[in-house]
């Protein structure tokens, strides 16, 4: 059975492909993403309230490490095999090292739709994976320079809308706890899937618009945008199982490592590494990897996790 939220994505994609004038107003899209990010944050926060934070520290450490390692591995691959210039390789690597919250939300919906158990503290990992890749990406692009505007860069990284909303939601969920949160449950938790469906409709519209730039950048990006997520998912699932996550939890972690950012990283890279071509990385992450993960990736990663669990 295909999840209706996926149909919303395909619907948006087709509407845009056939040049319908359908548009989600920017303010509504902003509201949808605010609701998604806060809800995901709160889900993690509520879970943190139930178990001692200290017991999660080893896992958090491992996940942070993944965030640093992925761009370090990908950047040389992009330079050698893709023949990209240094800044572009670093920028694309940073996009893939960071995560897509939209993809995460679809993975969570997949778990719930198929009644698969997963660890409820996974949203904490989203925050942890969001940040390191940006720092590594900037360093890879520019090297260590004495005159780096770290104030500006760290403002961009830690106070970007996505990170602020996730951490805000996390804190609210943590402080309010499972009982306190029930009052606002109808808007944030009960409507989550509906909000996600509308969000994916807009993502479909945006994705279809990336296709025109795909023609200019050709096969390498298409291959990269599909093969790399699968490899990173395998790695993510393996690490997830190794650190004791359930099959569902490892699948979600694999999906996170497979996903590529299209909000936080593009903005940070545009400001910090202006000479990197933003169309390259956005085409790959939004035009190829996002639809791939959402449409076929997540179920595959679940099968991989089941196989590896043995």
């Amino acid at each position, binding site marked *: 059975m295909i999840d209706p939220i996926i149909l919303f994505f395909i619907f948006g994609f087709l509407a845009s492909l056939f040049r319908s004038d359908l548009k*989600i107003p*920017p303010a509504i899209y902003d509201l949808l993403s605010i609701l998604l990010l806060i809800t995901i944050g709160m889900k993690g926060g509520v879970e943190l309230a139930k178990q001692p934070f200290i017991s999660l520290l080893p896992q958090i450490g491992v996940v942070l490490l993944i965030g640093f390692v992925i761009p370090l591995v990908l950047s040389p691959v992009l330079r050698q095999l893709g023949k990209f210039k240094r800044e572009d390789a670093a920028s694309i690597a940073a996009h893939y090292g960071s995560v897509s919250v939209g993809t995460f939300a679809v993975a969570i919906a997949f778990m719930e739709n198929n009644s698969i158990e997963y660890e409820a503290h996974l949203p904490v990992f989203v925050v942890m994976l969001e940040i390191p890749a940006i720092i590594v990406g900037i360093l890879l692009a520019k090297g260590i320079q004495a005159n780096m505007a770290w104030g500006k860069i760290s403002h961009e990284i830690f106070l970007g809308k996505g990170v602020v909303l996730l951490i805000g939601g996390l804190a609210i969920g943590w402080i309010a706890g499972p009982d306190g949160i029930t009052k606002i449950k109808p808007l944030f938790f009960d409507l989550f899937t509906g909000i996600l469906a509308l969000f994916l409709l*807009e993502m479909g519209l945006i994705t279809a618009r990336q296709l025109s730039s795909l023609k200019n950048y050709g096969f390498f990006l298409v291959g990269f945008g599909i093969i790399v997520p699968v490899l990173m998912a395998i790695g993510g699932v393996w690490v997830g199982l190794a650190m004791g996550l359930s099959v569902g939890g490892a699948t979600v972690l694999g999906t996170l490592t497979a996903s590529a950012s299209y909000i936080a990283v*593009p903005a940070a890279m545009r400001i910090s590494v202006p000479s990197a071509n933003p169309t390259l990385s956005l085409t790959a992450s939004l035009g190829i990897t996002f639809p791939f993960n959402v449409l076929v990736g997540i179920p595959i990663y679940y099968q991989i996790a089941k196989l590896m669990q043995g």
Partner: protein
Amino acid sequence: MSTEKELITIITEAVLETELCKKIEQLGATGYTVIDVRGKGHTGNRGGDWKESANIQIEVVCNAHLAEVITHTLETNYFDDYAMIVYRSPVTVLRSDKF
């Protein structure tokens, strides 16, 4: 009482808003106006329906000397790497003490 001033119009990527506004103030402008815009140009269609493809238009009214300084700063720092259109036009302003 009216005076001749210059209007600088900058059309560029929304991601630059904070940085540019700060810079314009530092260079000595007394104020600016920012508008969300959309359109099409050299770098393709800027639909403006989500942040990464959104454009803004910044307008600054100032004297000719400052207009020269601001446009020169933009030229040296941003023209190479960002989608940016800049033009200047003479304007007649009322309450010239505001600029």
